[in-house]
């Protein structure tokens, strides 16, 4: 299990390869989040952010068969099309991999302390939390 909160970009292929070595693994589901049209700065809470993500991964492991998992979330200045977040889950079968991957993303969105500040043409603004993200996390309860 790997959790990394980092400034640097990540390599999807290398991360998938790193969690795929065990011959019992038959499925790896990945989600990659990208910056849309607007440049942004991502702030986080060093220490708590890593801890919150690790707790979310533990919850996923208690609900599904997860053989390995990597979560990487970037912070700092990001430009349109940059990668922001990676969730990769390795399981024996796809059902567990898909479900755990989506669960981790939904919980990360509402529980992990990150804040986006968009740098628009008319100035910078903090992104507001969305009710739809709360709903997405709620459905796993």
């Amino acid at each position: 299990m790997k959790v990394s909160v980092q400034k640097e970009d990540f390599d999807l292929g290398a991360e998938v390869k790193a969690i795929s070595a065990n011959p019992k693994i038959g499925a790896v589901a990945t989600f990659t989040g990208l910056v849309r049209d607007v440049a942004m700065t991502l702030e986080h809470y060093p220490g708590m952010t890593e801890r919150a993500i690790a707790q979310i991964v533990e919850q996923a492991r208690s609900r599904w068969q997860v053989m390995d998992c990597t979560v990487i979330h970037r912070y700092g200045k990001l430009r349109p099309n940059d990668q922001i977040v990676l969730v990769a889950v390795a399981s024996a079968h796809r059902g567990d991999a898909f479900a755990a991957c989506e669960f981790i993303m939904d919980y990360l969105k509402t529980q992990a302390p990150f804040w986006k500040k968009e740098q628009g043409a008319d100035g910078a603004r903090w992104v507001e939390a969305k009710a739809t993200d709360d709903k997405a996390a709620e459905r796993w309860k």
Partner: protein
Amino acid sequence: MKVKILYFASIREKLGRDAEDVELPPGVATIAGLRTHLRSRGGAWAEALAEGRLLRAALNQDMAQPAAAIKAGDEIAFFPPVTGG
């Protein structure tokens, strides 16, 4: 008792600071109590921590409810709802 308080994102900007050590008067014993105490400083504090404003808090780096009890040496953080991912 003394606690450490951290502020993030829009709250940090409104207050113009990201952290402080605060000696609390007797009677301030919960996250909600601390928020009220800080609000009593007035100005940006009254605004950034206003009652109607949707805020989250963490106690020793775990998400915490307003009623959570605080003790000397705790690290408490105030921030807006999160927007990562």
